[in-house]
């Protein structure tokens, strides 16, 4: 019992420590990058249980702000190969276990 409690605490700590958004790869201009990152963080926090609705929120907001058409993938384990418009890709980690990939391609 104690061990599992400790484990839980560690997990919680680790999640707290690692909950800052870490951008892995991005070729967006500075302002766009910051805006998109904040949007992703908001969406993921809001829909913490449902990746699809978080992705939906991000995609719709990006479409309105930066034009069509955007694609968003949120998950904990996946591989991908995408074609994206230059200067319109953001790939980041968040919350210790989530990975978000946002790109534009019409």
């Amino acid at each position, binding site marked *: 019992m104690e061990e599992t409690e400790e484990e839980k605490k560690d997990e919680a700590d680790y999640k707290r*420590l*690692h*909950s*800052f*958004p*870490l*951008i*892995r*790869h*991005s*070729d967006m201009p500075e302002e766009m990058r*910051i805006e998109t*990152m904040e949007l992703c*963080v908001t969406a993921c926090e809001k829909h913490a249980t449902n990746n699809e609705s978080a992705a939906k929120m991000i995609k719709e907001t990006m479409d309105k702000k930066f034009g069509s058409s955007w694609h968003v993938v949120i*998950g*904990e*384990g*996946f*591989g*991908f*190969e*995408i*074609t*994206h*418009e*230059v200067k319109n*890709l953001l*790939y980041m*980690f968040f919350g*210790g*276990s*989530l*990975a978000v*990939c946002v*790109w534009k*391609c*019409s």
Partner: protein
Amino acid sequence: MPPKAADKRRQGQGASSGGKAGKAGKAKKRDEETSETGEDGLTARAVVRSPDQLRLTEAELKAEITRTLTADNPHIPRDIVRFSFIERAYKLVDDMDQTTIHFTLNGYLIHKDSDEGRRQSIRSSTEAEQAPVEEKEAPVEASAEATEEAETKDEEPTEEAEAAEEEEREQAAEAAEEAKAAEAEEPPLPKQPEKKLANQFNFIERGSATYQYPLREKGLQTDPAPIENFSDNVNQWCIYDAYMEELERIEKAKEKEKAKPVVVKKEETHSGRKLSYVEPPHSDSLSKVAKAAKIAERMVNLNTFDDIAQDFKYFEDASDEFRGQEGTLLPLWKFQSEKTKKLAVTAISWNPKYNDLFAVGYGSYDFMKQGHGMLLVYTLKNPSFPEYSFSSESGIMCLDFHSEHSHLLAVGFYDGNVAIYNLKKASSQPSYKSSAKSGKHTEPVWQNELVHMDVIKLSADGTTMQGPEGLQLQMLGSGTSFDFHKKIDYLFLVGTEEGKIYKCSKSYSNQFLDVFEAHHMAVDSVSWNPFHLKVFISCSSDWTVKIWDHTIKTPMFVYDLSTAVGDVAWSPYSSTVFAAVTIDGQAHVFDLNINKVEPLCTQLVVTRKKNKTTHIQFNPVHPIIVVGDERGLITCLKLSPNLRKMPRVIPPEADQTPWVKRG
């Protein structure tokens, strides 16, 4: 006839090959021909050609050229390329529309049997009926009868009807004619005539159509947006690793900041969130280009200042041969920066390792106006922008490179501090900075052999401090400059504000070895001769430059330069050549071997008035000198051959001749 036919064929070919010109030629030729034949058929025929006609060989004339007419449009472009989104590539567009429209006109004719045609004709017929109705009331009935008659006529008329109608016909013959005329336009079916509005208010209806602009079609296809591929794989451990790495990096950065003696402000975290925005290490595309940009900048500079670079390397002033002993200084580059225009050059020092790199300290000699200072490191390869620049709050008074660790610079400030700058680090702050008693003029010197760095400062209150140990020497005056002996390590000279020069030793901390009553005003600079171990030179604001032997109390040579001397420097290649700058902007180069009285060269270095030259330094390798002035401008000059004469190699025995004493 045959010759004529031959001529005509020639004409025809001329037309085909000459085109329009041929046609003109053809017409002319025909005229000429006719005139020919008209004149005299017996005389020999000379082929008369118009001046602009093509001359063809017989074979060419006989050649048959076929011309085909095609229905292709010659004006359409055949090399149009369009981006196909299906294939994601640019493709040549083959099928171009060959139709050329020369004229369009929107017509308004409609077939009479079409719906619209029928409607219109009905409308026009009812209107036509109304016209006779209005005009003549009398024959209305007659015409009505006439129409009825006409109708009955159209139908199969019976004889009875005919007989009955005969009489009426005669009566209404005229009416019938009129009705016929009207009938021609009428359809077989009659309709209720529409009443026309009576013109009660005396207005006229008139309609017109506005000018209709012809429509044009235009199409355009934009370039496709640039596209890139990207791929990656992510799982839980991958994310975990990334975060751990990031945390480590942050930890290391924090530790580094703590280790520095100077406190640097930490970056603010985003307000309202505990999260801190972490910059990935490989995002900024500018930093990747930095190295390439630097090389490109140097190349551009080299191209711009190409002639100067050539002069620097190869130009030897040939006129020196005719000038006797005198020489000239050839101006090369000028180094200037926007930020230093208001500052005076207070110190120049060449880098011992990289011969084209030199550091310039900026500050102010004016006691009242002391502003900020700057330290710029220039290279000869890039005269337009300094390689490194540091700014400081107080003016810099002097600086020196470390003789071994050539990336370290020691700088003395007006407020008495000494700082050490490390050129290898990218920070704009000095690596170490110390505060000390207030000093006016400090000249740090590096110790070569000792492991830890010693900075020796000379300050205005008369103490020399050897930091960090703090070996103190008391002096009876305030020091302005000093110099270490090149060979004898512990021996150094100090020049003071009163004009005295003290000879001191590091080992005797409280006493000086000797004193020279050198000048009447402050000694601006002292310097040991790099070759002659006993000789040193001093310059002062009392307009004189004096050369001494440190064993003799009176100077060996005195030069009066008619204005205050800012700085003097020995040349590194000859023991008898030295240069001095005076505050009127002139540089004087002396060679004691050649002329013991006069300078070999006196040249105006800076042209602006009120611009005093403050410092001068020889480059250890190249035959150039740099001169700094009060406006922050550094001028680089090349010494002409006459000034660069190496001294005759005298065997050591013969060198015992004592120096001639001069008053």
